[in-house]
Each structure stands twice: as structure tokens, then as C-alpha cells.
């Protein structure tokens, strides 16, 4: 039995002999990716799942919304990602008086050239950390969200391309805190995943207290990946195989979300495509060339939680969207 499997493996190896060069380079890339994840995990203690999801979103070419209480390490996570990936990084602190121009940039009349020159805003950067996005007024929020979906910005009638890869990590306080504007429902799905950090486990928290300040870790962090490598990885993620059985499973999840009693608007076909994309990236993170149902399940809650519209039920307790997403997962059979 054992030899049979070995022969199988070798046959695969032979079949792809032409790409063996490619294969080793890919292996190398994946190893580097593993190292990168490890490094981020060293900086952000106690949130390995969140880190994996963040990387997953990155490889899927999607943006991330991190939602949690202040002080649990949202900004640290974003910083750690930027350092480790070796990308250009900007941070925008959203405040209630932030204007759209503060984000995208502004045309300034230049005395020397005697014409308007565009001063690119902080959004022209490979990784953008939009901190506390729900403290800015809706107009500013939508400026960012539009840039995210269109991957270019139109200022003064001129279209300006954003750099590639373009990755937004937005953080958000839970909405029941005062002085915040809720992100509009229709634009929430510009974020591929919505990650919750939560408090770190006891072990990690103790280590956090013990070790020196996170900032020192950040400064000492070395870039492990670069733009080219990241682009290749994104490309690889796109090539991960999704079998017919798996597509059936994703479809079953989508239709289950539309059938759920507590959901008024279920997942859209676009959400389905996003789910497939995220699952591909997640499979690649685990060095696999094909998606497993487990990959879909791992990203589903983070992906569906902010996309379904829950029936308002003020009476006793408001249901938690991620709990409902979990329900859907549990009610849907793996084919």
C-alpha cells in the first residue's frame, strides 16, 4: 500500500518534470511565506488564526476589515504585515474631520510650474492602514471604499492608478461605541474578510507583558517577501484547483444563507466568487494545490459575517452575524 502511494507521488513528479524549476521555486516561495507568517505571529501574539486570515486575504487580492475594541493589537497587526511583506506602507488615522482629499490627495497650484500639480494622498501606497475607519464621516469613508473597489482614483477628471499590490487594512471599533458612523451595508463587501481579534489567550498576554514593547519588534522586523514574490504568490493562489464537488459545496452554502430564517438578504453570487477566491488563497497557505471543504469553512465566517443582512430583532438579543454564519456552516453537508 505504501509503495503504491510513493509511485503515485513519483508519477506526479514526472508529469510535471518540465516545470520542476517552477516547482522548486514555488516551494521556496511557500517556505518564505511560512517564515513571514511566523514573523508576524511573533510580533502579534496570540492571534494565529487572524494572522492566517490576513495573509489569506492578501493572497486573494482582497482587503481586510479588522474589528475589535481599541488596544487589542489591530494597528500592530497592520504594521507587522507591512514590515514583513516589505511593501510601501502608509497609515491614515481616520477622524471626524478628515476630508476625502486628505485620503486621495489634492491638486495644488504650483508656483514654479505655473499649473496644478497633483499631490498624491496617503492612499497611493501598497499597504494602507485605515485606522478607525468608522470615525470618519461617510463621505470620506466612501472615498476610500471606492478607491478599494476600483483600484484607481479619479481626481480632477484624471484617472490615476493605484500601486500594485494594493492592500487596505481597515480597523473599526464596534459600532455601539459613541461618535462613530456605521459603514454602509452596500459597501461593506469591498472588504474580502472581516477579522475579529479579541483578547489574546492568557499565555500570550503574559508573554506580551513580559517582553519589551511591540515597537521594538516592529523596528527589528525584516522584510521577508517583496512585491514580485507577492505578485507570484497571488498568481499561484489563482491557479489553485476547485473541483466540482467543492463548487457544489460552495453553492450549497450560498443557497443555505439565502434560506436562513434570520437572514433577510443572503450571500450574493459575488460573495460566492469571493468565497472561492479566499478559499483558494487559504489552500495555498497550506501548501495545497486544491481546495478542501475545510478551507472554505475556515474563511466562511470571516467572509459571510459582514455580507449577510440580519433581520433586525430587537426584542430579546440581537443575533450575532458570525454566529449565524457558523449556523449555516453546521447545517450544510459536505457533499
Amino acid at each position, binding site marked *: *500500500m*505504501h509503495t503504491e*502511494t510513493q509511485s503515485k507521488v513519483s*508519477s*506526479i513528479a*514526472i*508529469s510535471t518534470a518540465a516545470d520542476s524549476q517552477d516547482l522548486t521555486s514555488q516551494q521556496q516561495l511557500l517556505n518564505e511565506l511560512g517564515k513571514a507568517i511566523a514573523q508576524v505571529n511573533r510580533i502579534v501574539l496570540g492571534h494565529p488564526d487572524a494572522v492566517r486570515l490576513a495573509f489569506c486575504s492578501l493572497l486573494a487580492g482582497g482587503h481586510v476589515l479588522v474589528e475589535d475594541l481599541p488596544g487589542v493589537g489591530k494597528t500592530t497587526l497592520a504594521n507587522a504585515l507591512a514590515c514583513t511583506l516589505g511593501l510601501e506602507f502608509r497609515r491614515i488615522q481616520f477622524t471626524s474631520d478628515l476630508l476625502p482629499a486628505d485620503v486621495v490627495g489634492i491638486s495644488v497650484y504650483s508656483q514654479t510650474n505655473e499649473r496644478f500639480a497633483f499631490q498624491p494622498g496617503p492612499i497611493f501606497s501598497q499597504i494602507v492602514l485605515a485606522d478607525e475607519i468608522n470615525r470618519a464621516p461617510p463621505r470620506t469613508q466612501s472615498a476610500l471604499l471606492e478607491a478599494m473597489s476600483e483600484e484607481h482614483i479619479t481626481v480632477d477628471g484624471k484617472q490615476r492608478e493605484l500601486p500594485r499590490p494594493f492592500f487596505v487594512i481597515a480597523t473599526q471599533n464596534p459600532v455601539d461605541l459613541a461618535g462613530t458612523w456605521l459603514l454602509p451595508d452596500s459597501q461593506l463587501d469591498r472588504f474580502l474578510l472581516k477579522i475579529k481579534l479579541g483578547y489574546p489567550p492568557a499565555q500570550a498576554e503574559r508573554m506580551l507583558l513580559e517582553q519589551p514593547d511591540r515597537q521594538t519588534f516592529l523596528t527589528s522586523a525584516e522584510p521577508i517577501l517583496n512585491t514580485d514574490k507577492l505578485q507570484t504568490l497571488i498568481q499561484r493562489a489563482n491557479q489553485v*484547483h476547485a*473541483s466540482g*464537488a*467543492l463548487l457544489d459545496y460552495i453553492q450549497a452554502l450560498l443557497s443555505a444563507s439565502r434560506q436562513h430564517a434570520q437572514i433577510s438578504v443572503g450571500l450574493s453570487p459575488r460573495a460566492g466568487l469571493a468565497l472561492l477566491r479566499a478559499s483558494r488563497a487559504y489552500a495555498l497557505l497550506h501548501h495545497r*494545490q*486544491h*481546495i*478542501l*471543504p*475545510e478551507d472554505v*469553512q475556515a474563511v466562511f465566517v470571516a467572509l459571510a459575517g459582514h455580507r449577510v443582512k440580519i433581520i433586525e430583532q430587537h426584542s430579546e438579543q440581537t443575533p450575532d452575524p458570525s454566529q449565524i454564519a457558523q449556523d449555516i*456552516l*453546521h*447545517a*450544510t*453537508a*459536505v*457533499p
Partner: protein
Amino acid sequence: MFTGFGIMAKLTKRRPLVQRSVVLWVMATALFAILPHLTRMPILLSAALIAITGWRVSRFYRNPHWLLRTITVLCAVFIISWLYEGLWGRLPGSQLLCCMLVLKCLELNRSRDAMLMVSLSFFVVATWFLFSQSPLTFVYLVTATWLGLTTMIVINRGGTEQSEIRSMFVQGARLAIPAVPLALAMFFLFPRLSVPLWGIQGGELEGVSGLSNSMSPGDISNLFIDDGPAFRVTFSDPQPSQSELYWRGPVLTRFDGKRWTQSIYSSVVTQIKPERENADLSYEIELEPHRRQWLFALDYPAIYPGDSRLGLDYQLRSIRPVSNVRRYQISSDTSFRDNRALNSTLLNESLRIPDHVGRRARRLVAEWQAQDDSTNAIMQRALHHFRDNPFFYRLDALPLLDDPIDEFLFDSKVGYCEHYASAFTFLMRAAGIPARVVTGYQGGFDNGEYFLVRQSDAHAWAEVWLDDEHGWTRVDPTSWVAPNRVQQGSRAVVDVPNWLHAPWLVDMRNQVDKIRHWWNKNIVSFNANRQSRLLQPWGIERVDQRQLLLLLIVLSVIISAIVFWWYRRVDHIQHVDPVVRAYHKLLHRLRHAGIDTPIHAGPQTVMQKVIAYCPDIRQQVENLFNRYIHHRYAAPNISVEEQPQQSNRLALARRLNSFKLPKRR
């Protein structure tokens, strides 16, 4: 105070209209039900029914006004009663039912109407069995049940897509197929009525082929080309030779110049019967229904069924018309002589000939009498007359117009048994010898275990009163003209139409008849009497109805249990891929072993759980599950060395199936 309080509006809950696909299904069922009836309908009526069906399923259909619907129904009733002179009876009744079924489609709006139409269709199917109960009708029965049940399922689903038709038929089959054994059990064991609850009327003869109670030369000819079975015989004694097989039917004594009819004396029960002890030839006859009273037998029946009577002319008659296949035991006394029953009335009747026919024949007989007056001599002269003159045996004889005796004897000289029997009897009577015509069947085909007598074996011959010692003696003038007819059977002399008698075709027909025979024997003629002897093969002489019912209940429970078990199996999703099927079975086994594998667990999760359960065989488990995962989720391999997909698949399915969890210590 509360303005909105107490409003309990009575809502009109209206059921939705049926979908077009439902209409199509229902109309197909109805059409299938009336299909056999259409063959018996006047062509215009059946065309009208088909046209209405077509209109209903077409896209131009609109519900007609209720007045128009009522008029159409009345029209149908009127037409049928006009065609058949009344509505009472098998044929008009069933055809009216067909019309009502089709006309109901003009009011097919809700699922209630659809269900009613399907039920009516079942009823129409049942009425067809009044006309035919051949083995083919069994096939028709099962098919109609299947189609009807499928349609009921479709109605309850509210319609079907094109792609679902197949699965609908499968659903229908899952009800119809298990119903067959259960229905058969009920069929054999459900208590039967030994006496009918209400009267059975006979006398309806439409469409049943067979002998009639009168004969005018030229009558039987349509029977000769009818290859349908008349009856079957199983001899328990050595069977007599072919030329001895004269199956005696109606005895015709009266002659009005054109037509031979039965004497009223034939229904008088004879007092002088063959002795039971003398019976030396016993056989069983399975008679196809002919809706007359007479039963066929060889001369002369000594032991015969209790509900039949032997007339003065020794013709066997049943009390009731034979409307179903009938099986009866007969023993004949071949040595019996019918020489005592000739009273003066019967004698007179056997000599009477009308004056206006056969004048030349009478002159001929007078010539013969002048030479030799003895009975024997006259008879011989008459028979030799047929042989020595150019008489021919042909079925396509021209009809005789005014004087059937003289025209045949002196002009056409072409005819078949009826002509010869009729002419011969006339000649005998003209000579003052009592004579009569007997119709029946002659010969038969040895089909292995039984003798098959077809309609085409119909025959007519004469009986002559020789003297007090011999009594009535059978004389077959046809055998003098065409000896083959009697020695080899009707087929030897019949030449039309030729292709029907190709050897292979005849052989096939005989094989088919064997099936019919079996069917008639075991299913159609099954009755209360046979039911009580059902357990004879197992040594139980008689069962009463209480025991039968008990047996039925026990058997039903057993069969139902088997069917339910089968349902449990087939209901579950049947994955086409054997690997997936095997995997799901494995999950089922794991659940039974206590490993929690919920439906949402992916293969890798399941693998981890199995490994946690039995870490000893980690290698084996990983191997198996990885192969499954590879099969199901990985990209198809484009390797050259790859084994054929199918065999790979089956091997994996086998391995999944043979995977066993070790016993937990």
C-alpha cells in the same frame, strides 16, 4: 376600545391553478386509459375524443363556457344512447365513461380536478377488462397503474420540469413495482365470493367470435380465418385420434329453407344419460368466453359440471352464459348410443323440409330411392354423389341467394362444411331418413401438454338416425370431399391467407398460446373454488376464508416489511460515483462506531477524528483519506502512466468499503 380587535376575516383560501405540465401528464394518463376502448368505438367518436384531448393540451385552449360544457356532455350521452340503443350494458357504459373522462378535461383547473381525472382513468382501465383479460392486458394493467401513480405524484408536486420526467417515473415505479407482489398476494388470498351478490346478465354478443345458435350456409367462413383460441383440452386418458375429435356444439334441427336453428327440445333435459361408470375418456376443457350457454364435449358426456344440463339432443348447456374463461372436467362414454330418445315430435322435426327449396334435390333423391330404398344405400349414394361429381371444398364460396340447397348441389358445387352438412341433411330428410346438422369444432392442435382448438377449427356435420340399434349416427360429408380437413385439421384445406400460416409464425402463435393457457389457467379462471384448494400442493385439502385472511395478513406484513426496508435503502441519495458512495457509507459506519462525524465535517476533519480514535493505524488512515481527498478535490491528473480512471475509482471504492475500525481497547 380596540378598533382592530375582533376582526376575524374569513379568508377565501383558493387553491392555485394547475401547471401546464400537470395538464400534460393527466391528459397522457387519460389517453392511455381510453386507448383500448378507442379501437371499439365508432371512428368519428374516437376521432372527436382525440381531437378534444389535442385541443386541451394545445396552446390555444381556453376554458369553454359552462353552458357549452353541459351541452357537450349531453351530446355525448345522446350519441352513445343513439348508437347502442340505450346506455345500459358493457359497451355503451364503458364508452360513455370514456367520453365523460375526456370531457372532464374541459374542467381541469385545480389539482382536485386532476386527481379526479386520474381516478376516473383507473376506472376506465378497469372497464376494459370486461372485454379482454389476455396476458397482454396484464402488461397494460401494470403500465397504466405505473403511469397513473406517477401522474398523481406529479400533481402533488405541482408540476415537473422536462428534466425531472425520468425521476418522476422512477418515483412512480417505487410505488407500482412493490405493489405487484402485494397485489398478487391479495389476489390469491383475498376472500372471494362463491355466489355473485347481484345478477349477471348475458346475451350481449358483440365482438365475441364463435359459433352462433343458428346456421345458414356461408356463416362460419369468417371464423376460419380467426386464429383465436376457442378452447383448450387436457386429456387425462390417452387422447383419441385426430379424426375422432368432433367437439359437439349446438345441434340444429329446424330448417326454414335458408337457416338451420335449434329445436326447442334441445333445452329439455334428457332422462337417459350415459352411465357414469361407463365413462372411458376424461379430459379438462378451458373454454374461452363466448357468452353462450353451450359447453363443448366429445360424444357422449357422462360426467359433466354440476351447473350444466344435458339436453334431449345430448347437447351440454351451462346454466349461465360463459362470460369468463371457464374450466370444466368432462368424462365421455364413447360407446354410448343415442338410440332411445327419438319420440314422435323430435322425429317429425328431424324430417321436416320446407316445400319451396330443393325441388331438384328431391327429384334426385326420388331417382335414388327408385333404385334402392334402404337407408344405407341412400346414404352411400348421397356421399358418393359428393365425391364423384366435381364438388370442391373452398372457403371463398359465393353466397347462395334463393335456394341454398339446389344452387349448391347443382350449380356452384363449391363450398365448405356448412354447405355439405346442410345439403346432405336435406337429402336425407327428402329420402325420409331423420337427420340434423351439428355444429362444433373438429380436431385441434397438439401444443405439448394440451390440445388447442381454434376458432378456425369450427366445423359442421350431420347426424342421421339409422335404426333403433345405432340411433343417431355422425356422418361427415365434408370428409368425402376433402378428407384432409378431418385427418389433418382445418389448416390442411385452408389456403387463404397464405402468409398467416408460415411455419414459424404458426409455431410462434402456438408458443404465445401456451402463455395464454397458463394465464387463463392460473389467473383468469381463478375463483372461490380454486381458492379453497389453493394450499393443496402443500397437503392442505381445503382452507376456509378465515384462514386465508390470516395468511394474507401475515404475508402482507412480511412483504411490506421487505418493501419498507427497500425504501430506506433507495431513498437515500445515491451518489453516482462509487467512491463517494463508499465514502458516505464509511461515514455512516464511523458514526455507528461512536466517532462524531457531523454532516458538515470535511474529509480532513474526519481523518483527524479517526486518527484520534485509533492512532495505531495512523498510516493506513492517512493513506486512505488522502487518496479519497485526491480523488475528489485535486485537479485531474494528466499523467501518461495514470491507470484508467474507472478501475482506479473502483479500487478506491473497494478500499473505502473494506476499511474497518480496530476494536477499541
